[in-house]
């Protein structure tokens, strides 16, 4: 698969994490989440509430831009809802799905977006976690996407816990779900130990290959399967919103 096909497959997988009637938010630098949310609304989740980081509610995303906050993405929105208002909603438990990124992720789902090396003497100063530390433990479903599934990104232990995995949560927060969609497969934590397991491998990639590209001993779900590739009409919907292929940017 080329970059665009991989992106399309990931977008399709991410869109299926959204249920009809969900209230869903995307943040900054989020081309895949925007396309996944738009796709879900055009297909299986027509009644979802789409809240954009650009503040538009239920916009008709004609196309995406290099900035995920570009106000042109708010076309045909029914209204505006500011981030502080969405955060109020999240504290009430009424923001159902959030998409977040990661530079490193470990077996418990801890994410690092802050620093490679130590915080006092960074090897790489990363951009920062934005809403991760706030939303990860309290949102019923968090979907993390990663365009680079390697042993350097899927690590034994993150250098810094920006977003909280299952070993950094209260008992009550353990019920909140996390799904990881990478360029190689889909992972979740649906086991009693709450550790990462492979739920599906993308076409063209094997379970062994994915385990080799993971920096810890990745479990495999008993019902592991192949990730479905989107039907041509689904791919067409995605491509119409991103004719320039901005969604391939993250794939290096």
């Amino acid at each position, binding site marked *: 698969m080329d970059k665009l096909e991989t992106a399309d497959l990931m977008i399709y997988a991410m869109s299926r994490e959204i249920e009809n009637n969900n209230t869903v938010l995307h943040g*900054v*630098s989020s*081309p895949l989440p925007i396309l996944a949310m738009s796709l879900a609304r055009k297909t299986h989740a027509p009644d979802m509430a789409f809240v954009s980081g*650009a*503040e*538009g509610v239920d916009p008709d995303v004609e196309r995406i*831009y*290099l*900035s*995920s*906050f*570009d*106000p*042109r993405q*708010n076309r045909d929105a029914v209204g*505006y809802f*500011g*981030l*502080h208002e969405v*955060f109020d909603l*999240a*504290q009430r438990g009424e923001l159902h799905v959030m998409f977040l990124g990661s530079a490193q992720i470990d077996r418990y789902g801890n994410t690092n*977006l*802050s620093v490679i090396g130590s*915080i006092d003497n*960074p*090897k*790489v*100063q990363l*951009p*920062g*976690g*934005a*809403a*991760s*530390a*706030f*939303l*990860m*433990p*309290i949102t019923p479903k968090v979907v993390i996407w990663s365009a680079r599934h390697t042993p350097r990104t899927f690590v034994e232990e993150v250098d*810094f*816990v*920006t*977003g*909280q995995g299952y070993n*950094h*949560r*209260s008992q009550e927060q353990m019920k909140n779900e996390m799904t990881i969609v990478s360029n190689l497969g889909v992972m979740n934590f649906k086991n009693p130990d709450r550790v990462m397991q492979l739920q599906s491998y993308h076409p063209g990639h094997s379970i062994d290959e994915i385990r080799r590209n993971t920096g810890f001993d990745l479990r495999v779900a008993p019902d592991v399967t192949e990730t479905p590739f989107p039907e041509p009409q689904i791919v067409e919907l995605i491509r119409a919103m991103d004719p320039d292929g*901005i969604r391939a*940017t*993250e794939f290096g």
Partner: protein
Amino acid sequence: MRKALCGLKEAATLVKDGDVLTTGGATFHRAPMEFLREIIRQGKKDLVLVDREPAIDFDLLIGAGCVAKVRAGLLAFELLGFAPNFRKKAESREIITKEGACQPIIAGFRAAAMGIPSLTVRGMLGSDLLEISEILGSQREVEDPFTGEKLIAVRAIEPDVAVIHAHEADEYGNTRIEGPVYEDVIKAKAAKTVIVTAEAIVPNEEFRRKPEATKIPHFLVDAVVHAPNGAYPCSCFNRYDVDYDHIREYIAAVNNDRFGKYLDEHVYGRAGLWTNSKQRI
């Protein structure tokens, strides 16, 4: 009502060395760029910058040597990559970074807007960010006195100055913003001094004709500046779009040791207001 309209240079003198400064907008949208270029021309030093998700606004001030500390939830150039000056100077320890998270920063502004010393928020517990914040004294774990729930108390953030670029203002400081408002109104309530730069100065009667369109009333505003294209190269909704090509040039300049030349050309070389007519729509 007191007249607040003044020139760009005069308004920028309200910013003092060492001030805590926040800017309106988010990432590449409606940042008060022309005002920040004037701050650089006036050689301000040791500023402490705080915002939820800034981008080229903070990076430009950092690159020009105006900044001592940065506190942000995320500081990057969206899909164009790292904020180049921020990354360089953070890694070389020329600036102090205090990473926050979006919600505590917004809650800090809200606490200041409400006139209370702190505000509690959910989440955050279990993140290493909280440890840093506790050391800095900006956040602390607390127990809600009524339910016993463990929460985070965020200390109020009261900026010395908030600078907001808006669509329309009158000479008294009444301000209209079209489209996304971000935390601009909260910041206007939270800051000690509020400066509005506006695409257009319109008669006071315009505001009286449609008061519901007023986002910031005059008594919150200390200075108003007429700054057409004042957000450029960032967007100003309904007026002009982001100039992504300019931002690419900016990144290339920093990464190829040509940032001094960039400043000469785009900041020091322009004493007056930016007028790039091709950006108008």
